[in-house]
C-alpha cells in the first residue's frame, strides 16, 4: 500500500515501528486518518513519539510479537470476524494439505521435514495435496529462501484439492485454526505482558474496522524484521490481513516502512548477493544452474506470472552483455558468477574475520559502528589488505585503524594494522541527479542542486569510471577470468568537465529497449525471450517509455493515489493485487471501498488505480489444463504472482522456517518458550556462534535485562550523516539508555547518571534516562525489565559516544539473513565503563561470574 493510502484506513496498527519518529513525513497521513476518525494503535516496548499520537499504546516484551499477532488471528477465527467471501475466494483457506504435513502442535515446535543434522527443513510435505512437485528449492544451503523460490518454483502447477466449505480437517483454514488455538489472550498476558483487556481493545478496534465497508492497515519497520523470526512476524500480519480482507483494497494492507532513502530501490536492483534485478534469483554453483535452459526450467512455474521468467532473465543478460549475448552462447549466462556460499554481509564478515577477504568497498554504510557486533566487525576490518570507503565525512569505518576502542584497549594497534585505507569523498544527494525508490515502490527522480565540492563525486561517476578502467585493464588480457568483464557493455555517455555519466541513460537501460533498433519498450509485457529486447530490471519497465518521457520526473499528481507523480513499479500501480478490491464477479465490495472493478459494457477492468490484472480478462474466465502463465490464472484469482492465484494463509513453498508462523523466543531471552517448551528459538536460525560472537543463556542471571535498540528522529542510522552536522548533533548530543523508574530503583541509579550496559559481546556507557515511558513487563506474575538504547553514536563527529551495536550479536534469520537487534539480553551496572584493557576484563569477569545453565533444550 502507499503511505497516502493510509488516510483511507479505518484503523491503523503500528507495530515494530516508531513511525512518527523515523518516518515523520509519511506519518502525516496517519495524522490525517486520525483526524478522519481512524483509531491508531501502537504496540511497542517503548512509549515513544508514535505512542504519543496513538489512541492505544500497548507495551509488549520485545520479541513476543508472533504471540500477540497469533492471538489476533485466533480471535478472528474463533469469533468468526473473518471476511468469509474474501477468504473463500481469494485465499488458500480452502486448499487441502498433504497427509504427511505435520504442524508444530503435533511435533513439539517443529513442522514436518526437519533435518536435525543439516539444521534445515525439507519442505515437500508443506505442498498442496494433489500438486506435483519440482525440485525443492529450499535445498539450497547458501541462499536466502526468497531468492531461490519466490513462491512458485517448487510446485509444478496450480492443480490441487479444495474444500470451499472450509470443513475438511486437512484444509488450510482448519489447520490454521488448530495451529493458533493456543495463542489466546491469556497466553498473550503470559508471554507478551499485555493485559487481556488491552488485547481485547486492540482486537475490537482492528476487527471492527475491517469488512466490505471498512479497511484497516498495519505499518511495520525493522522492529519486526530484525528478529531471528522476522519474516514470520510479517507473515503473521499477512495472515491477519488476508483473513480480514484487507489486502489489495484502499486503506488496507501491510506497509513496510523502509529504513532509508531508496533502500527499496537497493532491493529491487539489489545490493544483495543472491538476487539479480527484479527479484530474479542469482545462479548457484550447482546443477540446475549449469545451463540457461535448466536455470529457466527450474524457476518457471507453468501457471502464474513467473512463467515469464525466461523473458526477464534473457532481457537482463542482453542489457549486461549487449551484442556479445547471443542465442548460441546462452546470452552470456555462463559469465554470471555463481553463488558458492553465504555472501551476505553477515556471512562475508565472518570470512573477513578469518582473514579470507582481501579487499572491501564500503559505500553508504558505516559498519564499524552501525553493524551488529561492531566490535568484531572492526577487528575483522584489520584483516583486510585494502579498504575503500566512500562517504561524505570521514566515518568510523575509515578511521577504525586510528581511534577504534580496540586501539585503546590494546587489541589492535595502528603500527601493526596492514590494511591500506582509501577514503573517497562522496557527493550528497543534492549534489547529483538520480532516482530514489521509496517505501511504497515509488520512483522519484531528483535533480542536482549544486556541484559537489572539491573531489567529491557521485556514485555513478565512481562506479562508471572504475568499471571503465577495469575494462581497459581486462582488454589487455583476454583470458577466461576476464571474459565477463570484456563482454560487459559499459557505454554510457559522459558529459561535463567531470565526465559524469548520464544517469537517464542508465534509467533507459533499466526500462528496456529493442536490441535491433534501440526503441524503448513501453513495459514488461513487451519483453521477449529471444534476445530481441534488453531490460535492466523488468519490474521497472515502463518507467521511461519514450525518449524524453522519464515518468520518474513527473510531478503532476492527478488524483489522490498520486498517479502523475513519479512512477510506482510495476506499471505505475499504487496498490498491488488490487483485483481483490472487487468481488469475484467484478463489482466493488462496497461503494466506500471501491478501487478497480470490471466494466461489463467496456469489457475491461477500470477504476482509480492501474488494475493489477490482465485488463480484458473477465471475472468468469476459467483456464484449461494447457494454459500457461497468466492465462492459467482464473478471472477471480487476484494473486497473479502465485501459480494458484491465491493469497497464502499457508505458504507451501518459498520459506525456510515453516509454512506458518510459530512463536520462538529470541536467541537470547529472559524466559523459556511457553508455547513450545521443547524448542526455544527458531530452529532454522543461524547463531554464528564464535568466541567473539557469544550468547547469553536463556534465561541468564548474568544478563537479566532485555535489550532493544532503536533510532531517534534527530539522527540518521549510525550517525555518519547527522553527528557531523551541528544543527542535528545538538538535538541529541549524547548516548542515553532508557529505563523504567522501577529498574532505576533496583540499580540505585538517578536520572542522568552514567551506567554501563554490557552483553557477552561488548559494553557501552550511557546516561540513564529514567522515564515512565518505559514500563516493567509483568508476565506470569513476574516483572521483567527492558532497557532501550538508540544506536547513533561512534568515535568520530561533533558528538561522540559508544557504539551500541557493540552489544549486538551477528546472527541470521534463515530466509533473508538479518541479525536480531531488537531483543537481546544485557546487564546494566551503575557508573562509567572501565577503560583500556580493564574493559575486556570487565566482560570476562561477568561472563565467569556464575555457571551457565545447559540443562534446557535449545
Amino acid at each position: 500500500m502507499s503511505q497516502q493510502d493510509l488516510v483511507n484506513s479505518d484503523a491503523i496498527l503500528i507495530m515494530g515501528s516508531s513511525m512518527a519518529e523515523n518516518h515523520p513525513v509519511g506519518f502525516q497521513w496517519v495524522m490525517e486518518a486520525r483526524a478522519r476518525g481512524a483509531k491508531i494503535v501502537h504496540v511497542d516496548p517503548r512509549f515513544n513519539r508514535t505512542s504519543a499520537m496513538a489512541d492505544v499504546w500497548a507495551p509488549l516484551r520485545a520479541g513476543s510479537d508472533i504471540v500477540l499477532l497469533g492471538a489476533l488471528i485466533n480471535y478472528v477465527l474463533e469469533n468468526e470476524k473473518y471476511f468469509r467471501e474474501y477468504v473463500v475466494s481469494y485465499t488458500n483457506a480452502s486448499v487441502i494439505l498433504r497427509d504427511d504435513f505435520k504442524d508444530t502442535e503435533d511435533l513439539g515446535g517443529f513442522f514436518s521435514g526437519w533435518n536435525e543434522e543439516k539444521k534445515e527443513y525439507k519442505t515437500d510435505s508443506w505442498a498442496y495435496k494433489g500438486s506435483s512437485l519440482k525440485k525443492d528449492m529450499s535445498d539450497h544451503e547458501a541462499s536466502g529462501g526468497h531468492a531461490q523460490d519466490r513462491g512458485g518454483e517448487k510446485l509444478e502447477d496450480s492443480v490441487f484439492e479444495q474444500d470451499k466449505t472450509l470443513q475438511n480437517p486437512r484444509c488450510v483454514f482448519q489447520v490454521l485454526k488448530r495451529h493458533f488455538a493456543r495463542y489466546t489472550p491469556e497466553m498473550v498476558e503470559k508471554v507478551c505482558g499485555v493485559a487481556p483487556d488491552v488485547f481485547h481493545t486492540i482486537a475490537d478496534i482492528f476487527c471492527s474496522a475491517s469488512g466490505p465497508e471498512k479497511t484497516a492497515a498495519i505499518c511495520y519497520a525493522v522492529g519486526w524484521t530484525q528478529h531471528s523470526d522476522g519474516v514470520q512476524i510479517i507473515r503473521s500480519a499477512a495472515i491477519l490481513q488476508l483473513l480480514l480482507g484487507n489486502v489489495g483494497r484502499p486503506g488496507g494492507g501491510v506497509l513496510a516502512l523502509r529504513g532509508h532513502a531508496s533502500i527499496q530501490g537497493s532491493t529491487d536492483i539489489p545490493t544483495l548477493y543472491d538476487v539479480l534485478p527484479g527479484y530474479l534469483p542469482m545462479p548457484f554453483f550447482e546443477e540446475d544452474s549449469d545451463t540457461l535452459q535448466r536455470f529457466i526450467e527450474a524457476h518457471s512455474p507453468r501457471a502464474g506470472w513467473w512463467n515469464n521468467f525466461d523473458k526477464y532473465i534473457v532481457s537482463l543478460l542482453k542489457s549486461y552483455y549487449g551484442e556479445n549475448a547471443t542465442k548460441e552462447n546462452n546470452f552470456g549466462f555462463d559469465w554470471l558468477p555463481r553463488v558458492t556460499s553465504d555472501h551476505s554481509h553477515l556471512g562475508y564478515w565472518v570470512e573477513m574475520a578469518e582473514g579470507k577477504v582481501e579487499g572491501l568497498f564500503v559505500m553508504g554504510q558505516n559498519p564499524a559502528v552501525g553493524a551488529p557486533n561492531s566490535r568484531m566487525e572492526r577487528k575483522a576490518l584489520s584483516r583486510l589488505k585494502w579498504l575503500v570507503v566512500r562517504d561524505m565525512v570521514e566515518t568510523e569505518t575509515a578511521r577504525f585503524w586510528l581511534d577504534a576502542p580496540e586501539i585503546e584497549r590494546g587489541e589492535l594497534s595502528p603500527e601493526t594494522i596492514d590494511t591500506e585505507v582509501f577514503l573517497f569523498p562522496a557527493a550528497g544527494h543534492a549534489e547529483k541527479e538520480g532516482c530514489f525508490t521509496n517505501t511504497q515502490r515509488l520512483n522519484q527522480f531528483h535533480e542536482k542542486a549544486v556541484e559537489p565540492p572539491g573531489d567529491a563525486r557521485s556514485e555513478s561517476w565512481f562506479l562508471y569510471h572504475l568499471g571503465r578502467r577495469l575494462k581497459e585493464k581486462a582488454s589487455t588480457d583476454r583470458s577466461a577470468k576476464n571474459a565477463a568483464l570484456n563482454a560487459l557493455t559499459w557505454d554510457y555517455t559522459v558529459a561535463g568537465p567531470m565526465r559524469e555519466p548520464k544517469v537517464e541513460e542508465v534509467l533507459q537501460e533499466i526500462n528496456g529497449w529493442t536490441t535491433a533498433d534501440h526503441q524503448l519498450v513501453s513495459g514488461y509485457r513487451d519483453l521477449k525471450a529471444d534476445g530481441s529486447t534488453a531490460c535492466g530490471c523488468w519490474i521497472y519497465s515502463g518507467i521511461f517509455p519514450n525518449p524524453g518521457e522519464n515518468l520518474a520526473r513527473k510531478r503532476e499528481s492527478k488524483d489522490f493515489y498520486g498517479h502523475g507523480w513519479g512512477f510506482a513499479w510495476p506499471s505505475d500501480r499504487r496498490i498491488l493485487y488490487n483485483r481483490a478490491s472487487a468481488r469475484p464477479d467484478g463489482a466493488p465490495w462496497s461503494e466506500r471501498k471501491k478501487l478497480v472493478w470490471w466494466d461489463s459494457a467496456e469489457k475491461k477492468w477500470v477504476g482509480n488505480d492501474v488494475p493489477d490484472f490482465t485488463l480484458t480478462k473477465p471475472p468468469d474466465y476459467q483456464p484449461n489444463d494447457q494454459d500457461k502463465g497468466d492465462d492459467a490464472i482464473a478471472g477471480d484469482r487476484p494473486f497473479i504472482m502465485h501459480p494458484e492465484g491465491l493469497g497464502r494463509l499457508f505458504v507451501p513453498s518459498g520459506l525456510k522456517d515453516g509454512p506458518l508462523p510459530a512463536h520462538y523466543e529470541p536467541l537470547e531471552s529472559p524466559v523459556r518458550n511457553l508455547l513450545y517448551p521443547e524448542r526455544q528459538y527458531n530452529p532454522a536460525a543461524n547463531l554464528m556462534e564464535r568466541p567473539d560472537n557469544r550468547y547469553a543463556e536463556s534465561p541468564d542471571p548474568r544478563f537479566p535485562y532485555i535489550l532493544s535498540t532503536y533510532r531517534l528522529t534527530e539522527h540518521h542510522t549510525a550517525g555518519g550523516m547527522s553527528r557531523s552536522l551541528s544543527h542535528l548533533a545538538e538535538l541529541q548530543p549524547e548516548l542515553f539508555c532508557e529505563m523504567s523508574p522501577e529498574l532505576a530503583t533496583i540499580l540505585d541509579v538517578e536520572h542522568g547518571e552514567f551506567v554501563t550496559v554490557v552483553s557477552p559481546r561488548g559494553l557501552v556507557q550511557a546516561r540513564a534516562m529514567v522515564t515512565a515511558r518505559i514500563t516493567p513487563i509483568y508476565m506470569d506474575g513476574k516483572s521483567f525489565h527492558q532497557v532501550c538504547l538508540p544506536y547513533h553514536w561512534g568515535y568520530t563527529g561533533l558528538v561522540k559516544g559508544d557504539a551500541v551495536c557493540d552489544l549486538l550479536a551477528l546472527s541470521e534469520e534463515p530466509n533473508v539473513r538479518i541479525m536480531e537487534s531488537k531483543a537481546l539480553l544485557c546487564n546494566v551496572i551503575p557508573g562509567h565503563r572501565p577503560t583500556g584493557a580493564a574493559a575486556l576484563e570487565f566482560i570476562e569477569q561477568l561472563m565467569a561470574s556464575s555457571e551457565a545453565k545447559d540443562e534446557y533444550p535449545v
Partner: protein
Amino acid sequence: MSGTAFLTDSTLCIGCKACEVACKEWNNIPSDGFDWKGFSYDNTGSLGHSTWRHVKFIEGGVVAGLGGNSPDLLSWGFSSDVCKHCENAGCLEACPTGAIVRTEFGGVFIQSDVCNGCAYCVVACPFGVVERNPDAGMAFKCTFCYDRQKEELKPACATACPTESIKFGDIDELRGEAEDRMARLKQAGFNDVYLYNPQDSSVGGIHAFFIVRGDPERYNLPPSPEVPTTYLRKGWVSAAIGAGLMLAGTLFAFGQDK
C-alpha cells in the same frame, strides 16, 4: 490586528524538531552547544539567541492502553514555541535605539545593525523570548522570516512541518481556523483543549497563537502576559497614589501635634 500569523496546534505536533532545524538552517543560526540536558528529548532547552523555534517536551504520566493523544489522557505533549510577535511588544517598547521595529506583516523585527546590546528588550519580553548573544553583543529572536515573507514564501518552520502542526497565513483567517479546530477537537472528545491567544492583557493580542492541552502554564505560556512599560505604568500610578496618601497621612499626623 492585521498581517500574518502562526497557528501552532500542539495536538498535531509529533516532536520531530524539523521546525527547529529548518529555522536554524534558513537563518544560519549557530548551534546551542552539545550538552545533554536530560530533560525528556529536549536538548536545546528554551527559546534564545540561537534557538528561535523550540519544541517543548511535556512528560505526563503514562498509562498502558491509553496513548498520549487519546482524548482521555495527556502523556507526552510536544509543542513548538516561537516569538509571539505581540501587538504591543514589550521588547519594542523598551528598545532605546529603535532597533526593534514592526514590519508590514505585523511581526516584530530586531535590526541587528542598530542594536547596541543594552538588553532592555530581554527583561521586557513577557514570554522570555529575546536573548542577548554575549559574543555578538546583540539581541536576537525570530524574525518571522521577514526575508521569506517579502518573497511571498512561508516561514521556514511552517514549510518544514510535516504534520501541519505549524500553520501560517493571514491572521484573521487563521483565527477562524483556530476556532474551527477547537470545535472539531472538542467534538472528538478532547475536552481540555485550550486556545492560547491572550487579547485582554496589555500585549493586546499575538501573531503566534497555540492550541494546547490543559493548563497553558504546563507549556510555559503565562496565563496573563503583560508588557512591562504598560503594566508598570499602572504600577507607578498606584505607587504614586500610595505615596501621596502616605505623605498626606504623615502631614496630617504632624499637623495633629501642633
